[in-house]
């Protein structure tokens, strides 16, 4: 009897322990980690609840250091790292960054190389496969090979990786970041490849701005004439990065044979045979950025001022980690990417730099003709060439491994084929500059150390992908901007559509030389700027296509031209500017063409508010809500042809919408297909106003910020770790580009006075831990348009007065 009780109690205890420590509860929405393991106060999430009151000084051993390193944390938890040499500096950067952002670093690289299913199970397998098929890992390996060719760069990257790993090795089950506990897995060692993967993730994020597949579908739907009407390369009101009228040189004697692509030279329809049209995830690309540099002639101090605010998807932990890196050979401050060494957007004791996205199309899709179903050979100029196959293994949590064969051609990986989807009739290979050997890491390393404009040009000459507009300002007075990246030389319209991959005449053959990339140095107008617009006017001697903005740049350039005697605060106001340039051109036309004879009292009130509106999307504006609802409704009924199409097509750009609203001649696009009547523009305006005013009447009265509802999501989209609502003005296509999910992910202004005066802020906090008060402590100030002074000094003793705590790293 007694033995029975013993066995029973042992059995119950073991069952209970197993359930609480090892059993993951699976629900439709999420996996709930083993409850005891996650909730217990000894190793569970409670261990991540940081002590808010005590910040203590620490001394930690970091193996491999050549000399002690001192890290001063200021009141914002921004580390100021002082090392005796560059290797120690990078090791300490890796260590310190990992302390705050380890999980983020790991999940971003995990996503980039398609290894999410290892932790989340089969539901993310397609996501993972597409990442591998897109060649993210392949590209990262190429980049790493290039970096490791340079012994100096290899040594520094290894030091950075070592710093991260020493932090990882110091952890135990209790000290893992809380996301590991929630998803119930353990951190793995960092590698140099992961740093390269992170840069590829940025490349993908910023250069997936091509619509080859959607354009091809649209061409089939519309025919060439209408296609060219809707998807125009250039509208004349554009204000390019390099001012209109600048003369360009061509340093390469290269004649592109104007062989038209047989696939798309006519209106013939090559993809009617697609059984399963490629439906790529649609994203309203709101990525963008602003940067500018103002010459001393226009500033009060007589020294240049540089500003940068990259607009990305807002997330917690933030994409950026602010840092100061100081050693005898340089002293740089600014925003770093957790997982990549150095400062990405920032300044040192001599120069300042910042980046915006170039938006040029550097991803082309090629139709591959295989000899047979084995995909061992493919057609090139009438003969068959061998393919190269790589079998990729996918580890799936809770299931057997999955293997996917990816076929490589001389273009690149065949992303879409029968291996990917049974129904896939067309095989498409991707040619992308992110697959090539490249040295982006060297660019940032050298920028961190640059002292003048020659150093700056040398540094960016190493840069290929994702193409960026590098703005520059220097204490000695120089300002400059260059659109830098590796750009293929293409014939007109090449890269707009899917190309025939069986003809080498369609291959990329050479690249635009560095010195021919669009740039401006010390222009007489006294400033350089970029906001994702075209880099040049149409006289640029090379063809290019891409996705370009028409509104923010014109506002910035108008303001910078008007302003003089500029101070840092004036630049803050410009970064925070909520003027809606699109509305200023669009709304007067809409109001003008609206038939106001039959409006009711409520509609009359809306018209009055809109007429009085000065086009500022301020947080408390009601007219901004009315305008956005009306414009959105009008756009949707005008472009009804482009919605719910059988094959995915690209929705017309805002600039095109604007032109069609302002136009005076008839167009078939005004007609609403599903109605008997043939509508005119005025009909659309009247109808959209009726719909919009009905929507407004049905909603509770709200201001712009409430309607817009900006949120900052946690990287794993865990609502409890996200901020659901951030009060803010602005919108996409507005200088202060805060939309629902995107916005200025980093705002920085640097004045190049003798003692550099710099301010910055970003919508997040230094810590990646949702249990820290430094997780999201910048968000409220960011949304109110406040900035923080950047403490920057090459002298450790100067910095000590800003110390809230000190971390000593000992060899």
């Amino acid at each position, binding site marked *: 009897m007694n033995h029975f009780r013993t066995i029973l109690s042992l059995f119950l205890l073991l069952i209970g322990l197993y359930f609480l420590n090892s059993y993951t509860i699976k629900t439709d929405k999420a996996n709930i980690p083993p409850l005891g393991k996650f909730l217990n106060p000894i190793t569970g999430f*409670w261990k991540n609840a940081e002590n*808010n009151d005590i910040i203590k000084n620490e001394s930690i051993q970091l193996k491999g250091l050549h000399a002690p390193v001192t890290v001063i944390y200021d009141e914002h938890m921004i580390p100021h790292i002082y090392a005796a040499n560059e290797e120690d500096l990078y090791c300490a950067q890796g260590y310190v960054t990992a302390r705050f952002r380890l999980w983020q670093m790991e999940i971003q690289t995990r996503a980039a190389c398609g290894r999410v299913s290892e932790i989340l199970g089969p539901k993310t397998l397609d996501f993972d496969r597409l990442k591998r098929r897109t060649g993210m890992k392949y590209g990262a390996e190429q980049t790493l090979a290039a970096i490791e060719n340079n012994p100096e760069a290899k040594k520094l990257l290894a030091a950075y990786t070592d710093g991260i790993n020493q932090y990882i090795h110091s952890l135990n089950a209790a000290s893992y970041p809380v996301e590991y506990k929630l998803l119930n897995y353990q951190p793995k060692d960092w590698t140099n490849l992961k740093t390269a993967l992170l840069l590829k993730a940025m490349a993908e994020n910023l250069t997936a701005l091509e619509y080859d597949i959607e354009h091809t579908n649209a061409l089939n739907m519309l025919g060439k004439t209408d296609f060219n009407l809707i998807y125009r390369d250039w509208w004349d009101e554009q204000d390019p990065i390099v001012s209109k009228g600048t003369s360009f040189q061509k340093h390469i004697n290269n004649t592109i044979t104007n062989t038209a692509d047989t696939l798309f030279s006519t209106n013939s329809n090559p993809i009617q045979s697609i059984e399963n049209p490629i439906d790529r995830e649609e994203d309203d690309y709101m990525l963008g950025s602003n940067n500018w540099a103002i010459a001393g002639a226009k500033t009060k101090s007589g020294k240049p001022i540089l500003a940068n605010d990259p607009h990305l998807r807002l997330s917690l932990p933030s994409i950026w980690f602010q840092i100061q890196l100081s050693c005898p050979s340089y002293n740089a401050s600014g925003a770093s990417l957790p997982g990549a060494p150095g400062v990405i957007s920032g300044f040192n004791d001599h120069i300042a730099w910042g980046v915006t996205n170039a938006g040029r199309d550097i991803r082309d899709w090629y139709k591959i003709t295989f000899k047979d179903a084995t995909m061992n050979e493919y057609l090139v100029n009438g003969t068959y060439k061998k393919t190269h196959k790589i079998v990729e293994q996918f580890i799936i949590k809770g299931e057997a491994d999955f293997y996917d064969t990816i076929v490589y051609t001389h273009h690149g990986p065949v992303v879409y084929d029968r291996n990917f989807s049974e129904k896939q009739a067309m095989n498409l290979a991707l040619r992308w500059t992110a697959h090539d050997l490249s040295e982006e890491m060297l660019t940032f390393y050298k920028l961190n150390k640059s002292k003048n404009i020659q150093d700056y040009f040398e540094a960016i000459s190493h840069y290929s992908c994702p193409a960026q507009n590098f703005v520059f300002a220097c204490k000695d007075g120089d300002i400059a901007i260059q659109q830098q990246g590796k750009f293929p030389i293409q014939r007109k319209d090449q890269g707009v559509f899917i190309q025939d991959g069986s003809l080498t005449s369609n291959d990329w053959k050479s690249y635009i030389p560095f010195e021919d990339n669009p740039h401006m140095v010390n222009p007489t107008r006294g400033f350089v700027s970029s906001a994702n617009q075209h880099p040049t006017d149409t006289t640029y001697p090379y063809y290019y296509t891409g996705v370009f903005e028409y509104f923010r740049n014109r506002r910035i350039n108008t303001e910078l031209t008007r302003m003089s005697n500029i101070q840092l605060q004036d630049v803050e106001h410009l970064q925070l500017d909520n003027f809606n340039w699109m509305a200023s051109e669009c709304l007067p036309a809409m109001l003008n063409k609206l038939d106001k004879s039959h409006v009711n009292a409520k509609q009359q009130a809306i018209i009055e508010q809109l007429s009085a509106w000065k086009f500022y999307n301020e947080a408390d504006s009601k007219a901004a809500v009315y305008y956005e609802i009306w414009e959105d409704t009008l756009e949707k009924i005008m472009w009804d042809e482009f919605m719910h199409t059988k094959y995915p097509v690209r929705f017309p750009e805002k600039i095109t919408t604007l032109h069609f609203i302002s136009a005076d001649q008839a167009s078939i696009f005004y007609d609403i297909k599903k109605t008997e009547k043939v509508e005119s523009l005025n009909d659309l305006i009247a109808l959209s106003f009726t719909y919009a005013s009905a929507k407004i009447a049905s909603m509770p009265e709200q201001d712009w910020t409430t309607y817009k509802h900006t949120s900052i999501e946690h990287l794993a989209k865990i609502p409890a770790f996200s901020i659901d609502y951030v009060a803010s003005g602005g919108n996409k296509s507005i200088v202060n580009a805060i939309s629902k999910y995107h916005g200025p992910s980093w705002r920085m202004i640097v004045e190049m006075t003798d003692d550099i005066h710099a301010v910055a802020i970003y919508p997040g906090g230094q810590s990646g831990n949702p249990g820290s008060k430094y997780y999201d402590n910048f968000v409220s100030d960011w949304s109110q348009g406040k900035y923080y002074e950047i403490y920057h000094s090459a002298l450790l003793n100067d910095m000590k007065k800003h110390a809230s705590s000190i971390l000593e790293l000992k060899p």
Partner: protein
Amino acid sequence: MLFSNKLLFVIYTLSVLLLSILVPIWFAFILLLIFFSFVFSSKTTKAFLLGFASVFCAWIILMLFKDFQNDSLLSTRITHLFKLPSKWILLILTALIGGILGALSTWLGKNLKSSFGYIK
């Protein structure tokens, strides 16, 4: 009876607390309580209650301490994550988990004593 129930409760609770601070294995208290219960064996109900109450209380103390220092930042988020109506439900639920394992441990300890304790 060498120790009063109150004293045993205090000894159990403090030992569980101390062990939690020293050993980063969350269920280490199981072995401790089996041992304690083996040594200080008492009636089944008493063993059960002692095990339950000591871990329940030790965990509540640990959680409150963390939560106070953290101004409830993380517990609020986790409460939201599990869609619980209040932070206190989260605390009690967690303490119940510890308590049940604690009770099973002391019960086992007591049973082991009955099975093997008198063999010499």
